[in-house]
């Protein structure tokens, strides 16, 4: 790049939508472009107040601790933890939500992955655990973990999202809570394991069979029915999560992964697969994870998590530190494939601009979007709207409620008044920089 091009670039940075949204390409080019763009903004100068004189920090004056065998986050990151649904261990299931407002990128650390565990986390001895595959197969078989490790393996990055994620948006009044409380039941990891189709070939699955059930080795023997079609497409018996053996809270030593499908179908602590004649009508598919409509009929077998996005930075609970440049960023995904585009609005949906998508953009995986923003210090309303590669568009709140019915109450933030809730989120930014959940 030449100097003249710098200038040209700086001068050509456009305000691509209302309330200070800048061209996403400003993020990808030389910093001078952003500086130029900020120079013409209301915020004024591109440089801040002078820095304090530098002092010598104490950690430079003494040796550090020896490297430990297993690394854990800095002690200063003690707020970056999951929130718990059953912190006292009452006799019921427990769960945990991912702190998306404190993370960045797209991969969720294993200790922060969302969990729903209806019977708690079992303590499974991997040398004694077996996977049974039976039912409509030529030869029922059990597979030890050691045997599974000798099959060809694959890796894929995939989100896992609870069917009840984002349910607090289905509220009469906007619930004031962080994105961890509102959207924290989705996470994303690289999963490695054996394709289920490989094992179905081994046992000789009945070619006419259309359904199998997957069952957990936990105390409640959680089970779900899954179409065989999904097994032959992209399901896997996952043994590794982000490179290490799958975390106990994610199903150690093995889980079913059905990429893009409702989280509950990704059966953890998997011990049994039975090829059956039809859906088994488990409590978790014919009571839980159903959607009761206003006419009294309930939707059942709603499998893909549909296209969704939300802004993590800024988001409710975080505070903007004065006018000037910010990067708006957030997460988007679709259970039906890749994200095609994400649009962002800073004026409550009056105008929209394309956000930059961080590569690689993977199918059925969390995709980070980024949008440069020059905040002028006046109230703004931030929205994100995702469209997947098939053209499915994340619905507005109005469109979503037109189909599902209007919420009658403002529920507890931990309640699940709706399943598969993928309406657009709206964050209000006040003049003091405070961020709240608002409806537009």
């Amino acid at each position, binding site marked *: 790049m030449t100097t003249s091009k710098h200038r040209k670039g700086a001068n050509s940075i456009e305000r691509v939508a209302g309330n200070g949204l800048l061209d996403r390409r400003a993020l990808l080019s030389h910093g001078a472009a952003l500086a130029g763009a900020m120079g013409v903004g209301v915020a004024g100068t591109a440089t801040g107040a002078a820095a304090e004189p530098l002092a010598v920090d104490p950690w430079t004056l003494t040796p550090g601790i020896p490297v430990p065998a297993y690394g854990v986050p800095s002690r200063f990151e003690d707020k970056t933890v999951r929130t718990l649904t059953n912190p006292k261990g009452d006799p019921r299931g427990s769960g945990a939500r991912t702190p998306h407002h404190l993370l960045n990128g797209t991969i969720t650390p294993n200790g922060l992955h969302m969990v729903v565990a*209806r019977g708690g986390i079992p303590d499974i001895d991997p040398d004694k655990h077996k996977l049974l595959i039976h039912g409509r197969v030529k030869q029922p078989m059990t597979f030890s973990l050691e045997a599974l490790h*000798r099959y060809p393996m694959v890796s894929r990055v995939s989100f896992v999202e609870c069917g009840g994620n984002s349910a607090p948006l289905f509220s009469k009044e906007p619930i004031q809570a962080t994105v961890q409380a509102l959207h924290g039941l989705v996470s994303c990891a690289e999963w490695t394991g054996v394709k289920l189709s490989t094992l179905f*070939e081994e046992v000789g699955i009945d070619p006419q069979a259309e359904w199998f059930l997957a069952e957990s080795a936990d105390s409640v023997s959680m089970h779900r029915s899954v*179409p065989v079609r999904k097994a032959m497409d992209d399901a896997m018996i996952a043994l590794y999560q982000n490179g290490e053996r799958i975390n106990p809270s994610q199903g150690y030593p093995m889980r079913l992964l059905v990429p893009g499908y409702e989280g509950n179908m990704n059966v953890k602590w998997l011990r049994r697969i039975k090829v059956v004649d039809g859906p088994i009508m488990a*409590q978790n598919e014919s009571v839980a994870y159903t959607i009761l409509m206003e006419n009294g009929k309930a*939707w059942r077998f709603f499998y893909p998590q549909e296209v969704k996005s939300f802004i993590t930075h800024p988001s409710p609970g975080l505070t903007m530190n004065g006018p000037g440049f910010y990067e708006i960023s957030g997460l988007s995904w679709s259970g039906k494939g890749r994200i095609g585009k994400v649009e962002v609005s800073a004026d409550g949906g009056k105008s929209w601009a394309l956000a930059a998508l961080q590569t690689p953009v993977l199918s059925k995986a969390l995709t980070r979007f980024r949008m440069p923003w020059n905040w002028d210090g006046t109230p703004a309303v931030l929205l994100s709207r995702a469209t997947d590669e098939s053209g499915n568009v994340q619905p507005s709140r109005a469109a979503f409620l037109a189909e599902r019915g209007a919420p009658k109450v403002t529920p507890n933030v931990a309640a699940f008044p709706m399943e598969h809730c993928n309406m657009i989120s709206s964050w209000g930014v006040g003049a003091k920089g405070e961020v709240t959940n608002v409806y537009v």
Partner: protein
Amino acid sequence: MFTFETSASGTLRSGKRAVIVAAVALLACVGAAPAADGPHLGQPISPADAAAWDISVGPDGVGLPPGSGTPAQGAVVYAQKCAACHGDKGEGKTNARLVGGEITGPGPAVKTVGSYWPYATMVFDFTRRAMPWTAPKSLTNDEVYAVTAHILRLNGIIGDNDVMDAKTLPQVKMPNRDGFVNLFPNKY
């Protein structure tokens, strides 16, 4: 899978020769394994030997075990094992309400066994596999049939003297049996 034996520093332990032992013990004969070129590392098992794990019950009653129970028998078990969490009469306490409620009306829906669950077999299946929460799978099949009968009776779905077993339970018609619309495969 490979087995590595190393010291804490990562050096291979056996001195002159690296010990990298391929696990070969699992090359069990799989007899008539269907896939010609597969690794054949699964171990064949007969349905009889898999029976202890084969606990799923379908809506048609397939999988229901021998045994039976009545509402009166179930009331005794329920008081001892269930009421602490679900209330004396299934009204709900620290855990889910089981009785009454309605799913249409001006207020939020109240989903219970009586108002929402589509198949009576699900009550048996869920109770047998998951309840009581602190001691799952501790009830006998007779006790599970009895508790199922008691919950159905509390909801006014069966009579005082109805006996629930593998033949009668699938014949119980739940009020909301036809209340569901299957999105798969039509929506996909």
